[in-house]
């Protein structure tokens, strides 16, 4: 996992992008937690979260309630901003430029253009390089990741299947990204620029970014796990598979018996992420974590119930 992480344009990196990608680099090895109130944000901060994601409903509840899921109420985001000193992220719908502008004006630290919300545009994502605020976006494979980076995303995460507590999709997505990167390296080694150009056409991405990825042997920005992380072992598994850090959506607060139970879960997942190779730490974290969210099996979801397919 060597190399500095900066997508290059014509061989140089803009200061603007250095700042955007740099914040994500400072979050590495950490856990970003979904929170719906100032009190939950404080629990996350005390547990050692590196950032919080402010949203009105955790993904499992979005799933249950149905309807259209949109950007959260700015008032609730402001309360969370006032409650903590760690970075605050918030979600905008895919392609919803104005929700992103509102979040930028609110001064959140990162925008997640997220498939967890109902997409606003069925063709385009937001042109993220137009914004001063940095963006994180989900992906299922390398082509999707590099399309988002080309649009200006400064951080990537797996999509997984949010709100299920089932890790299988997140594992599939990071494995696919890793396999795609291995292909890109092989293409570059065997056929040079021609090999890269052919693969770029096949997976639908920018050839220069693909070449850079092949040279680095990893995505050119920070890549977190998301979508289905429910236990300390899940978090450690995603780190083991090469993720730089972990988003936990529903896993902290869903089905938690008390705020103290949620706090224990939060602490346990922070510990497991920071020490994912230390078996003793993982035992302790798993005990501290207690009962996990009940969850729903990804295999039992109908295609229209899956969020990961949103995004183009």
């Amino acid at each position, binding site marked *: 996992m060597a190399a500095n992480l900066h997508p290059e344009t014509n061989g140089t990196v803009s200061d603007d992008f250095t700042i955007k990608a740099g914040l994500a*680099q*400072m979050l590495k*090895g950490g856990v970003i937690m979904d929170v719906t109130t100032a009190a939950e944000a*404080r629990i996350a901060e*005390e547990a*050692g979260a590196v950032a919080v994601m402010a949203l009105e409903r955790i993904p499992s509840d979005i799933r249950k309630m149905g309807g259209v899921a949109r950007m959260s109420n700015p008032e609730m985001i402001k309360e969370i901003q006032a409650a903590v*000193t*760690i*970075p605050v992220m918030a979600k905008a719908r895919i392609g919803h430029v104005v929700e992103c502008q509102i979040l930028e004006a609110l001064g959140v630290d990162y925008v997640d253009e997220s498939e967890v919300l109902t997409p606003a545009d069925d063709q385009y994502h937001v042109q993220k390089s137009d914004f001063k*605020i940095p963006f994180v976006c989900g992906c299922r494979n390398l082509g999707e990741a590099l399309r988002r980076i080309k649009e200006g995303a400064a951080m990537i995460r797996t999509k997984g299947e949010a709100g299920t507590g089932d890790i299988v999709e997140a594992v599939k997505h990071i494995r696919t990204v890793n396999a795609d990167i291995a292909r890109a390296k092989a293409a570059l080694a065997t056929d040079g620029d021609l090999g890269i150009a052919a693969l770029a056409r096949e997976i639908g991405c920018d050839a220069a970014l693909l070449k850079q990825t092949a040279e680095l042997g990893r995505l050119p920005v920070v890549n977190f796990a998301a979508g289905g992380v429910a236990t300390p072992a899940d978090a450690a598994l995603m780190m083991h598979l090469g993720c730089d850090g972990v988003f936990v959506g529903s896993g902290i607060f869903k089905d938690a018996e008390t705020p103290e139970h949620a706090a224990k879960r939060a602490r346990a997942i922070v510990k497991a992420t920071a020490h994912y190779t230390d078996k003793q730490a993982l035992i302790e974290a798993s005990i501290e974590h207690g009962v996990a969210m009940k969850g729903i099996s990804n295999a039992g979801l109908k295609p229209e119930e899956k969020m990961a397919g949103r995004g183009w």
Partner: protein
Amino acid sequence: MIKHITVGVLALQGGVVEHLNLLRKAASQLQSSSPKSHDGVEFIFTEVRTTPQLAQCDALIIPGGESTTMAIVARRLGLLDPLREFVKVQHKPVWGTCAGLVMLAEQASATKQGGQELVGGLDVRVLRNRYGTQIQSFVAGLDLGFLGEGEQPFRAVFIRAPVVEDVITPGPSQTEGQGKAPVEVLGVYKGEGQHNSSEQGKGDIVAVRQGNVFGTSFHPELTGDVRIHVWWLKQVLEVVRHGELVVNGA
């Protein structure tokens, strides 16, 4: 004769790899530019997560990241006291960038509710998130005299950065304050317009040193500019050889 110098990067969370990469680049530059001063000494760069790993180190970098997270994780690992020992008793060279600067300060303001634990070592009070949220993060050219005469400005990357808001006097209870080196201001950022500090025109203190403890508000590890890492490794080399800092070698 010293053969190896082990430099650790605290790897609880944050920009660890970035420092290791730049340290390696700095070491090879040092080797090629002044092989004599090197005298066959080999640098070993390593990640530090445990007390035994820390004990192996002759010098340490505390990287950028979230200082609240680092403090909480360090506390749970029982690393806070060994770190304090490393910095304040053994006086081994330490450099903190951004969150690392916060960790090395004796006091911090604008902390989370209930405050946060610090390692200390620098008699300063830092102000966290001095410039606001991410949208106020910026890159600015800094003139850093310690890099030498006529050097180009350093493109300093400030991300939700802290600054040193005050140099504090150690209380009488801190007997270790006796004979302690003074706090030297090594870098000041004079803001453009909206960043004017309350002490008009003086600017914000963004690089300080006190004895063997060095801190910067900004992230040299997010640039390809190796100059500060080279400078710091030279300091480390001196300290390991002679047991003390050559004051104002620049």
